[in-house]
């Protein structure tokens, strides 16, 4: 009914956090003087957070379309058809608390797995590039 609103809300929070972290990282980046050694290649955390926001926004956008398709979201007030009736509204809130929260949790879990894989790849020595004709 409106389950996509939960991941969409998480997407808003994650986007704000990404901007904040990116700003902090920019402030903390100080060019080393006289250090000829190249720093180790490490993915900034703001970029990793961007993966989460991309997943959340992408999924929420397509799910919002699905809700429009099923007539659950309308372009006029109150925008959610279920919000007009108290019984439907209670069902909608229940769905948001169950399916919506589970969606946000699963996307975040997938992102955590991605962080783990990225960490392993970061530590692994770079593979030789394949020559292609």
């Amino acid at each position: 009914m409106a389950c996509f609103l939960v991941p969409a809300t998480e997407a808003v929070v994650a986007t704000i956090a990404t901007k904040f972290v990116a700003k902090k990282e920019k402030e903390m980046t100080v060019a080393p003087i006289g250090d000829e050694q190249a720093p180790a290649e490490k993915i900034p955390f703001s970029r990793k957070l961007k993966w989460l926001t991309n997943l959340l926004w992408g999924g929420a956008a397509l799910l919002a379309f699905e809700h429009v398709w099923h007539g659950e979201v309308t372009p006029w007030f109150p925008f959610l058809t279920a919000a007009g009736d108290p019984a439907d509204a209670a069902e909608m809130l229940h769905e948001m608390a169950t399916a919506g929260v589970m969606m946000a949790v699963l996307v975040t879990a997938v992102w955590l797995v991605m962080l783990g894989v990225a960490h392993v790849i970061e530590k692994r020595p770079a593979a030789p590039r394949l020559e292609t004709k």
Partner: protein
Amino acid sequence: MTLLITVFAAVICTAIWYKSAPAREMKVGVLCWLFWGASIMWLVDAIFEYAELQAAYFTPAAEDMLNDAFLGLSVVALGLIIWLVILLVKDPKGVVRAALKGKKA
């Protein structure tokens, strides 16, 4: 059906993104995020529906299946439109910019 179509779209886009450098330049990654994000969320929907319907979940009515397939294809079309808009706005090859200025890219 919608989940299945979206998962196939996500897998195909990810394979193209991995294989082709020009595709990465063309921002195919956007499609990967869109389709994977939606696939994960619809997977949750499918789990909840399965918990409610049990085995009947796997034997949907023909009309429902057709509607879901139509929705799945529409979702893929919407994803492609979003990707195209992002591609044209970011314009990584400078084609739109060159066209607007009347030059060859």
